[in-house]
């Protein structure tokens, strides 16, 4: 089986490539948009296909002979829907029979309604630019569901965690710095999917080659709240759970950092990003750096670093059901939370998240 992975230089894409190459269970064609994306693949040698992925014709040129294309790209938010459509068109041109689109559960925001299901449409007007862009990309793909030339599968993972994941690294860093927090007692739903389980679920789809296009929420089977997840992570980095700040639900206020983040994701922000050269960006960072106010003296308890993104995620009401996926594709080669957390702990320790001096 020959599978092309678009976004092969990303966190998920590179793990997909690694799985293919080290396990040898499938042939993988890593597709990237340029040299910048090659770092995570460099250990394997120049195995990548570098191509302008916005051009269906050019992309089709590297897909010949592939059974499936898995799209794990993010790219520019403003161009995401168009790029997603270009990938689908490339499959049609190259005769690739399956297109697997990696969407996100974030298109449903905080999952306010218990009636949200796999075929629901993304929420409108999400505050997060990323979620809006992913929603638009998903709709671009769904527009092809009736096209018989290939089968299109949309998978919506929640928080992809595990070794090298920002959802492991970020909380671990926060715990070590004393800035991590839990809102509302950590009772919000933590919609996790371990990276290797997601790879296994993608492979299940490709191997079983569904005849009908469709959308599926995908996740680990266990149900966790944020408290349970943070307790397990704290054990891995050797930090007492009591060091995680408990923050009142009503205490969050949007700050300058949040506003800047939001501005970056706006149409104007994306427009500026494209027009400002690296030197101008550096200059802006240089000027902003002057406003940093360091605190000297005894190193004590730090204040919680509450960002809008984390705050929002901890407010998710309920775990999205994955029954439709299980019914269609079953469960193959996945691992449970305890084993996944143990592997994540190995990675954290190997990456210096437990301070140790040589013996």
């Amino acid at each position: 089986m020959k599978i092309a992975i678009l976004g092969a230089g990303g966190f998920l894409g590179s793990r997909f490539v690694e799985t293919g190459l080290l396990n040898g269970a499938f042939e993988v064609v890593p597709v990237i948009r340029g040299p910048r994306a090659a770092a995570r693949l460099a250990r394997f040698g120049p195995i990548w296909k570098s191509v302008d992925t916005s051009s269906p014709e050019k992309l089709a040129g590297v897909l010949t002979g592939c059974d499936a294309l898995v799209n794990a790209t993010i790219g520019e938010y403003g161009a995401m829907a168009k790029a997603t459509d270009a990938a689908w068109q490339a499959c049609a041109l190259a005769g690739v029979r399956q297109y697997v689109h990696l969407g996100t559960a974030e298109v449903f925001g905080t999952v306010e309604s218990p009636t949200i299901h796999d075929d629901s449409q993304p929420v409108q007007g999400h505050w997060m630019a990323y979620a809006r862009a992913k929603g638009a990309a998903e709709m671009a793909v769904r527009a092809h569901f009736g096209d018989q030339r290939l089968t299109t599968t949309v998978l919506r993972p929640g928080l992809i965690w595990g070794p090298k994941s920002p959802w492991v690294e970020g909380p671990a860093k926060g715990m070590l710095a004393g800035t991590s927090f839990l809102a509302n007692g950590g009772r919000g739903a933590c919609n996790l999917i371990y990276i290797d389980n997601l790879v296994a679920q993608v492979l299940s789809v490709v191997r079983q080659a569904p005849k009908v296009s469709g959308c599926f929420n995908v996740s680990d089977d266990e149900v966790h709240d944020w408290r349970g997840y943070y307790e397990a992570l704290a054990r891995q980095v050797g930090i007492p759970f009591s060091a995680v700040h408990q923050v009142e639900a009503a205490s969050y206020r949007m700050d300058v950092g949040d506003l800047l983040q939001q501005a970056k994701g706006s149409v104007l922000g994306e427009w500026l990003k494209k027009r400002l050269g690296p030197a101008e960006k550096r200059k802006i960072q240089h000027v902003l750096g002057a406003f940093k106010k360091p605190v000297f003296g005894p190193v004590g308890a730090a204040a919680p670093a509450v960002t809008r993104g984390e705050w929002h995620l901890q407010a998710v009401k309920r775990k999205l059901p994955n029954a439709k996926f299980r019914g269609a594709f079953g469960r193959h080669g996945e691992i449970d939370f305890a084993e996944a957390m143990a592997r994540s702990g190995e990675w954290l320790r190997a990456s210096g998240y437990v301070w140790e001096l040589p013996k």
Partner: protein
Amino acid sequence: MVSLAVIGCGAVFEQLHALAIRRLISGREVELSALVDPDQARASRYTKRFPNAVWFPSLEEAAAKRSLQAVLVASPPGLHRQQVEAALGLGLHVLCEKPLVTTATDAHLLARVAAASGKCLAVGQTRRYFPSLAHAAQKIRAGELGSKLTFTYSEGGIWGWPIASFAPFLRATAGGGVLTDKGVHILDLLLWLFGEMKVVSSADDSLRGGVEGNSQLELEGPGVRGTVQVSWDQGMNNGLWIAGEKGELRVQGDDFLSIDIRSRGGNWTRIPNEVAWPASTALNSPPMMTPRDYQDCVYLEWVSFLRAVRHGEKVPVDASVAAIPIGQIEEAYRQAKPREEKWLTAREQESAAAGHWRNGAAANI
């Protein structure tokens, strides 16, 4: 003013040096006269920002048509040896981006060429201007940590350079992976802090045909030993932790403002960095600067180079000093074993070990 040429108008020039050179032009310290790059279109992107700079396809042509005194070499490492040698041969002072070259033999050769030419050959090891590390060096030299030092250093981050070619990821053009790229910075600063150390062990994740994205070293020298880990494909808990018989200190990631210090078993205290360097080439009472970000450090590196050009002052890293970490990297590659990746499946770990680039055994990759 020193008349300057830049060789290599790619990401390193754009991201690191362009801003510093503009500051130096504003301060009437330099004039950028020539942009040397085989790709005219790439060089031409800078002619608006540097209106006096003219494009040339080769340094020889630039030197023939412009009156030059110094050159910045910011091309891929595989080209450095020949370009530095040519520049020194033309009687130019040279600031060369790291790594100077990819073998210690070449570094020593360039040291001899520079000595014979009487010109300055400085290597861009910018971290010598990180105030937290300079502060740490002061504490070590003052004996505040005591003897029998141990240390651990971690630095990881996902590659973000807007490069135009795959050269940094190919052994033939880069000489290696992250150890050559980032490791040379780290080994230079450890040389500065602790003196010369030998490589005790080395592990990396490169498979045959590739370059390493992660590298781990154990180092040992007189009265000091420690570990280094570096990555360009993942984040790490970035920082340096040093412990001696009397005390400990920590430098957190890219904190330019402070270090944490404590007596052995005591409580950590955060203290400000008050290390400063000359911020101009004025010989008498130059203004002093404590850098607050990487851009400031690059600027100070330039000032140090220009002070060497104008007043003959010694630069922190010349070719002889640069040869030491380059030699350590060569030794690390000689000793390299597969890195333990316990988070992978057993089969993946076996496969990665069997396919390791230093492993002659047959592999399934």
